[in-house]
């Protein structure tokens, strides 16, 4: 499937070509352009370079490390031909509608459950909407039904609320506890 781009560097053949991507721990990944451009950030870089693109010299990614990029690539490979995700909201209440995940996606997140934040941050930086939105939904799923103590523990958050603040929050939200 050809992806059209502004300056015409895109074509089915180009998608089959390899590009080298270097992560911040100096690991080189050789990736098919069609897979790499699932990331809008990388896609923009490829487009900006245009004809002068030297595929062997590599694209540097200063904000992503190797182990995480490996996981991100797995997602990109699976989603290289996927259509753009649609973020839907309830028309009345503006509530976000949850995405339904495929079996593969569920398994993917099961496998990398302990790296959800890394994935979210990488997806945010690399502009991969599907991975970004789905990971955030997974993180929300983890928060759901948990106590503040459990959330703190799960995400390694320091409890910096004073006792007075906690009492005030409790007092003004009694309605949700029964």
């Amino acid at each position, binding site marked *: 499937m050809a992806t059209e781009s502004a300056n015409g560097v895109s074509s089915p053949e180009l998608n089959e070509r390899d590009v080298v991507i270097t992560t911040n721990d100096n690991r080189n990944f050789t990736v098919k352009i069609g897979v790499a451009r699932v990331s809008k950030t990388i896609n923009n870089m490829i487009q900006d370079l245009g004809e002068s693109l030297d595929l062997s010299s590599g694209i540097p990614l200063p904000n992503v490390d190797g182990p995480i990029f490996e996981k991100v690539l797995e997602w990109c490979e699976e989603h290289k031909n996927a259509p753009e995700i649609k973020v839907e909201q*309830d028309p*009345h*209440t*503006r*509530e*976000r*509608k*949850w995405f339904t995940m495929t079996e593969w996606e569920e398994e993917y997140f099961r496998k990398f*459950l*302990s*790296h959800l*934040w*890394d994935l*979210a*941050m990488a997806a*945010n930086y690399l502009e991969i909407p599907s991975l*970004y*939105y789905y990971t*955030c*939904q997974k*993180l*929300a*799923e983890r*928060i*759901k*039904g*948990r*106590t*503040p*103590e*459990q*959330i*703190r*523990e*799960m*995400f*390694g*958050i*320091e*409890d*910096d*609320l004073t006792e007075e*603040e*906690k009492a*005030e*929050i*409790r*007092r*003004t*939200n*009694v*309605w*949700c506890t*029964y």
Partner: protein
Amino acid sequence: MSGYSLDQRLSLKRNVLGLRVQQQSIIVESSFMETSDRCNTNMRYSHHSPINDENSLIEMQNQSFESLRRQDPTLFYKTPGTVKFVRRRTSFDSDEDYFAKYRVPDHVLLLIFSHLNKKDLVSVVRTCKRFLNIAYNNKSFWSFLNLENKHISEHSLHSLLDRKIEILRLTGATLQSSDSIPPFIGNFIRPSSLTHLDLSHAKFDNLDALVYFLGRCSSLECLSLEACYVNDSACIEIAKNSKLQCLNMIMASGWETRGLIAIMNQCKQLAELNLGWANLTPEMIRNFVRTAPITLQRLNLSGTRTNADMNDESVRLLCQRCPNLMELDLSDNNLITSKSIPYFRAMPCLRKLDLARCYGIEPRDYLTLNTSRLEELNIHNCTSDEGVEFLREFLHPTLINESIFSIVARPTVGEAATSIWGMRTRDIY
């Protein structure tokens, strides 16, 4: 558990805890002393345990005595609840501290929180200062809430207003006034963002609390005080909502002329008004028919019964003043007579007319409505079944006695369970 060997047991515990315990050494954490003691007891009676072998026990002791000590208690704290023992400031799944490693941007947190319902949001708020600020200051998280039949304190209510709640359902709720309003709440004059407020059958232990609450509302579009006890001060606060379109006062009590006039004079956009059985005095009716906003499209003025001022003259004035009325419910007004029929007939927009139990009208005079454009006429108990059949034929296509209840301005009607005026108040997830 008893079927496992000690090694298996330890490794199980390691897995559960995610702790890295050296293969050769046995570390007994203080938090698990109890379990460990039990292991030791079992060990004594277990013939299959490798530690039963005296040599290996001595060997193991030599190796392990160093490490067999109490864990630093500051690494652990006890939380009542499902997860009993948790390590401080680390995560179970990986040893990374996400929030120290990354500066997670607000927009990522906002996206995550946008998936949550109110209950989970409150858990998030109670987690840390940063989460509190993000969750409290984003009004889209708190735009609607259903507190049907709950007890809610004045504190909570004002806290919700501070969170910019827009749609609030307090049907049947009990509002407890707070004795001491803390200073940071006491100083508020900030108007709330409430647009839809349903206080139907709500109870207040103190009317001042209601007045105070309504005093913060200035952008209401729909309001229901069904069966509430109100006073004129509350009505004067309601009158400040100049965008009010829909007001339901059915069965309300406690109010008087001053309050009613304030609302009529200042709410110039009122389109739906329900004053059914609202304990109107003759003076109130006299004033109402002279001050009702011209914008009214649907009006319920039923149930004044033998109120001396709900007569044909009032109907004439009302019909004159509100030419845009499409729906009019004057059921249970015994002093309305056949003289009013021409006034109804002359209403250009009137499509639905309710005159149930208006015994002052001679049934024969309904026939003169044949020139009107009425779509529905409800005259329950005014004539015999045969009479109804006859009217159905004579006034065709006008429907006769199709509906029993008037739904003018009422928040939750039909199949809706928790929606008010078509706005949902319940979380999906």
